[in-house]
């Protein structure tokens, strides 16, 4: 029997199906919790953010449009925004003691097969890994830190010791390159 897609489950959630919501939680929670922890840097707050984020998904699921995005990326967007808003509201200082040279993503290690993610998502992850590896280091670094630390371009400029304009350019070029590469894979 073919596994139900993330999008189909999310649409059932949009129709008020609690069982579908539990199913979605099982599928997305590990990845979304990882994102929340990375951004907020605190486990308990990340757990709270996870609860709030899933309740928000329950409320907004009816607005999801599968023609515009994947269910997973839609959920990621929601969780990232929630986590970054929490981070900024807590006025916690960014962890500038972290070394900017540190790679936040391990792009070299072989992909571990995970039973909880769909094959489609696994294939997408591989495509993203390849695309990220192909980016120039400075672009990849800016994109990774902006995405996984929830930093503004100003904070990023301060952290990396790079002019603000350069940070913006790196993010723009890096993301556009990433988009082009991922669209090539899809086509």
């Amino acid at each position, binding site marked *: 029997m073919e596994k139900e897609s993330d999008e189909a489950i999310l649409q059932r959630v949009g129709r008020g199906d609690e069982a579908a919501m539990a199913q979605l939680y099982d599928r997305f929670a590990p990845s979304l919790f990882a994102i929340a922890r990375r951004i907020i840097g605190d486990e308990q707050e990340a757990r709270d953010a*996870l609860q709030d984020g*899933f309740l928000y998904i329950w409320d907004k699921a009816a607005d999801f449009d599968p023609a515009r995005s994947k269910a997973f*990326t839609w959920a990621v967007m929601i969780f990232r925004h929630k986590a970054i808003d929490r981070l900024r509201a807590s006025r916690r200082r960014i962890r500038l003691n972290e070394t900017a040279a540190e790679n936040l993503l391990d792009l070299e290690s072989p992909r571990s097969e995970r039973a909880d993610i769909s094959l489609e998502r696994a294939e997408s992850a591989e495509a993203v890994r390849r695309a990220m590896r192909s980016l120039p280091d400075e672009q990849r670094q800016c994109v990774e830190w902006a995405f996984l630390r929830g930093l503004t371009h100003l904070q990023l400029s301060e952290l990396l010791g790079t002019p603000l304009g350069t940070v913006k350019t790196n993010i723009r070029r890096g993301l556009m390159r990433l988009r082009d590469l991922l669209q090539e894979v899809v086509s």
Partner: protein
Amino acid sequence: MTERQEEQAALHAVYSLDAHERQILRAELRTDPRLRVLAAELEEAANQIALLLPAEAPPEEDRALFLRRLKQHRRAKVTSFGTTFRILRQPWVGWAVAACLAVVAWNGYRVGHELTQEMETLIKNESTARSEAASALSKVAGLEKNLADATEKSQQFAGEINNLKQMNVFAHMEVTSLRATVRKFEEGAAVIVWDNEKQEGQLKLEKMPPVQANRDYQLWVFDKKNPAPISAGVIKVDARGMATVTFKPVEPVPSAAKFAISIEAIGGVAKKSADGPVIFAGPQ
């Protein structure tokens, strides 16, 4: 699309814009479909980075906690409607609504009744006021008529008073015609109007012959109780022998009995001289 817009769309995709920049970009997204497509594509690409993160399962109890919270969340949402409907379906709600409507209706009736009464009172007052005003107007008209009558009568009285005054004036006056006592002056005429109250008079002379250059006509008044004549002044006649003069005796004449004209030294004399001939005298 500008490079700046691409940049803002990319920063938006990783949620790196501050609140103000985000607001500006959202305004641009509403009006620029191409920018909207680009922003959506970049956001979709960025969010796929999450696929690269190693999974971290949250604590097991969080799942159960979430499902409990979800039920509570649903119930809270439903309750807001359900409670309302349940309350509306209670039998006492109908009675309460009916009671409220009855109170509102009674209040409406009471207010309407009070207003009607007030209106009737106002109409009555207005009618009374109108009738009082009409009565006052009628009185004013009567008073005006009385005033007009009184004014007319007053004018009549004033006329009568004037007449009486006139009569009174004439009552104090005596008109005396003097007769020539010398033949030479028989053609002449002398008339005196004497006002005893004012102690003055008017003399009119006609056809009087001229006197010598060093002589003047002089008028005298005789009092009943005083034989000595009192001077009333010098009289100058014109070339035709005419003169009209107002005179006043130099002393009071309580009861003028006689008038006389004599020819005296020029400028007149204070006391009647013996050599000055009397040419006119009267009444006889």
